[in-house]
């Protein structure tokens, strides 16, 4: 019995220690394990030029390490596909164009905020952003402040909230006061 209690205490203590050690590194390591995911999202953009917020919803698809696709179903049809350094935009009128992220450091940094987080690539995140991390496994906040000057002129801060390996909300604050909040509804990692 004493043995059992001792064992219980020990395991509790161990669990406690593990919880305490749950850090940015742990989160990143766990995110890096995720090879593929698909989620639904709702997005709200508040732009001072517009009288009303822009709302849209759709799905997000991620394949490690650098493939990301955003398909908009409601509030403007279209899809945005990022594969490596190529961004392909399909618009609802059937227009299609391609942008090379390399050519535009600001865009590259911006894409990294989301993609490098999903990939658990801390080095890349830290290259583009000053990274602060807060919270615990069940509720964490990652705050990214751009280092790149070109990006800093546009974006003030990106804040990512999550629970465990699941991202829940990405808030982008722009310098002019405009903001975008992307909320993730569900996760279905295959």
């Amino acid at each position, binding site marked *: 019995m004493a043995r059992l209690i001792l064992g219980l205490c020990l395991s509790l203590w161990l669990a406690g220690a593990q919880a305490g050690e749950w850090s940015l590194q742990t989160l990143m390591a766990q995110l890096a394990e995720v090879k593929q995911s698909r989620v639904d999202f709702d997005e709200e953009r508040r732009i001072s030029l517009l*009288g009303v917020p822009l709302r849209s919803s759709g799905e997000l698809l991620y394949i490690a390490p650098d493939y990301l696709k955003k398909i908009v179903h409601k509030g403007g049809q279209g899809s945005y596909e990022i594969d490596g350094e190529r961004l392909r935009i399909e618009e609802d009128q059937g227009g299609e164009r391609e942008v090379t992220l390399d050519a535009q450091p600001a865009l590259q940094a911006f894409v990294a905020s989301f993609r490098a987080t999903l990939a658990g690539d801390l080095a890349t995140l830290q290259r583009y952003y000053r990274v602060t991390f807060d919270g615990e496994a069940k509720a964490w906040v990652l705050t990214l402040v751009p280092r790149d000057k070109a990006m800093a002129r*546009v974006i003030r801060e990106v804040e990512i909230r999550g629970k465990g390996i699941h991202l829940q909300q990405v808030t982008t604050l722009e310098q002019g006061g405009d903001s975008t909040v992307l909320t993730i509804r569900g996760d279905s990692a295959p």
Partner: protein
Amino acid sequence: MRHKRSRVLSAWLALLALALVLITTNLRLSTDMSLFLPRSSDPLHQLVLNELRDGASARLLMLAIDGEDPQRLAALSRALSANLTTAGRFARVVNGENGLDEAEQARWFPYRYLLDSGPLDFSESTLRQALQQRLQELNSPLGAFTTQTLAADPTAAFRQFLRQWQGERSPRVQHGVWFADDGRALLFAESQAGGFDLDAQQHNIEQIHAAFASLDERGEAQLFVSGAAAIAVASRETIRNESQWLSLVASVAVLLILLLAYRSPRLWLLSTLPLLSGFIVALAITSVLFGTVHGITLAFGITLLGVAIDYPIHLFSHLQPGCTPQQTLARIWPTLRLGVVSTAAGYLAMIATPFDGLVQLGVFTISGLLTAAAVTRWVVPIGLPPQWAGATFAFPVPSGEGRFLLLARLLPLLLFGSSVLLLVQSDQPLWEQDVAALSPVPEHLRQQDRTLREALSVADMNQMLLIEAVDAETVLQQSEALREPLERLRREGAIEGYQMAAQWLPSIARQQARQQQLPEEQALRQALTAAQEGLPFREEAFVPFIEQINHSRQLTPLTPADMDTTLFATRIAPLLFERDGRWWALLRLSGVQGTTSLANWSEQQRIPGLHFLDLKAGTNDLINGFRDAALQNLWWGALLIAVLLWWGLRQIRRVLVVLLPVATALAVTIALLHLLGERLSLFHLTALLLVLGIGIDYSLFFSRRDLAADRRRTGHALLVCAISTLTVFGILSFSRLPVLHAIGLTVFLGVSASYGFAWLSAVAAQPDLE
């Protein structure tokens, strides 16, 4: 006698001292390669040649980095660019980062409706379409990046302008900087110094390499620098290094030969006096006459002066027991003098060419040769011992008899005939038509340069249109008038593309016309309100746009004077410039099919001051024209030599005995060069002039009417001369420089042939002469 000697000696020393003073006060060594470019009589040609030398395109250095992964290369490109920009020797370093930087974008942004940024249509439907487009962009994940200029520029006119600016021909951008298709990171640096200020350019290139070497993250990466100035610096370096070690080796070889031939350190020292004196006096005269002496004149001049080492050899070999040096000299002087004078006459041909460099070379060589001969005649004998045993071995000159005599008479004729026949019959071109083949820069460097030019879209100016007028406005307007016709040519496939300043900087008239097309405030407000109907934009969202349209109407149009040191100016400057109070627009054409039809086309355009220029063909024509002129000079030189010989020998028959072997040697040499696959250039011609001079010398000495003993001494002298000359030019022929190789090989073959035929001719003529 002693008195006279000291007078001669002091005169000689005074002359040398004076020459040295003149050299130190006058001599400026120049490395400006353009001295060796032809002077053109066509002012248009001259303008473009000058532009090529000193213009914006000549100041451009192209840089390529390879040997690492693209990410590392991009970082290196950025670091190098930052490093060089702060160094201050470059007006601008560009590597594709953002194209126009933020400050410059802000500067041109207000002018977006005046500059060429697409049609100025502000109707309701067009505006509505633009707003819908913007809304969609706002909705995209990258929307944040379009909001900044949205309120002031809802039609994205500035983006259109920037797209124009980038052009389809810009290099690919990867990791934010330019890359060539072969995976090298590309940059270009425009120097402050002129393209042909080679010292400054060399310094610039060294600085670029030093800056690159100082980068920590360099790894395995390698830097390659090219461009017109880099090529010029490289060729100077090659010429300098090559001439230095070749002349060192050649000098040592000749001195060894002399030491072997006479086995006397005293003679050995004396033999160098004529050459040294000749060199010093020649340098003094050239620097006084021209002020600036080109490094190449010096290098080639010393080479051509090398003949002067023959003069003391003739004297030494003819010394004999029982005769004072003066007596010996008195015997050979008429022959020696005739040889020197006729050789110098040959070089007169160079003075009559339109190449400044060759004129200098001619003056240098002639004055050097005459001085060397004079020193041999009056100074060297003073240093010789009164009694001298003479040459250490006798060289037999066979006398012609029987079959050998027949052979000696027939062989030259046979070879002369077959050489001429070969040259006439050959289907290979005799002359080098392509000027580029004369470049001292190795082919692989020139290939690299072409590749980089292509990758960076730095046009190699071959075909172009030029428009000339009194002011910038007129040439810009006339350029604009050509846009439509040029577009038509492009559609028809006659040209692949064109570049003109007016593409980026429209004429004042066109900018004003665009201002006129801008809508009145009231009309714009109405159209905008109607266009916004049903879209989520705030009513007052585009007030900045309306304000800016109003402001645009008040702007003073941009002119070349507003460009300063912007990247904009870097693009405009080579295409639009003022020279001597006239303005020129240069329209670059690429992928021209059929230059004659284009020349006709430009005449049909009826635009005053419009010229079509095919620079490559033009330069080749120019060079070929000079070659023909030089050839003609050669005939005059030959005639002059014949007259001089007749004046010296007084018998047509003896003149023929001297001249025939020389002519045969020249014909055989040209035929041999042709068989070896050499295409003749101006440099071969120069070398043939040297052969002519040496050949006459050999012929004159071989055909002297002398006693057998003296003939043996002559044989000795000529053998030493020939061996030393063949050694020097044999060494030159191994040079990698086309110029030195051409001269070396030609003289080597020519002197061998001259010696042989002069000897045969003497043998053949002996019975008649004695």
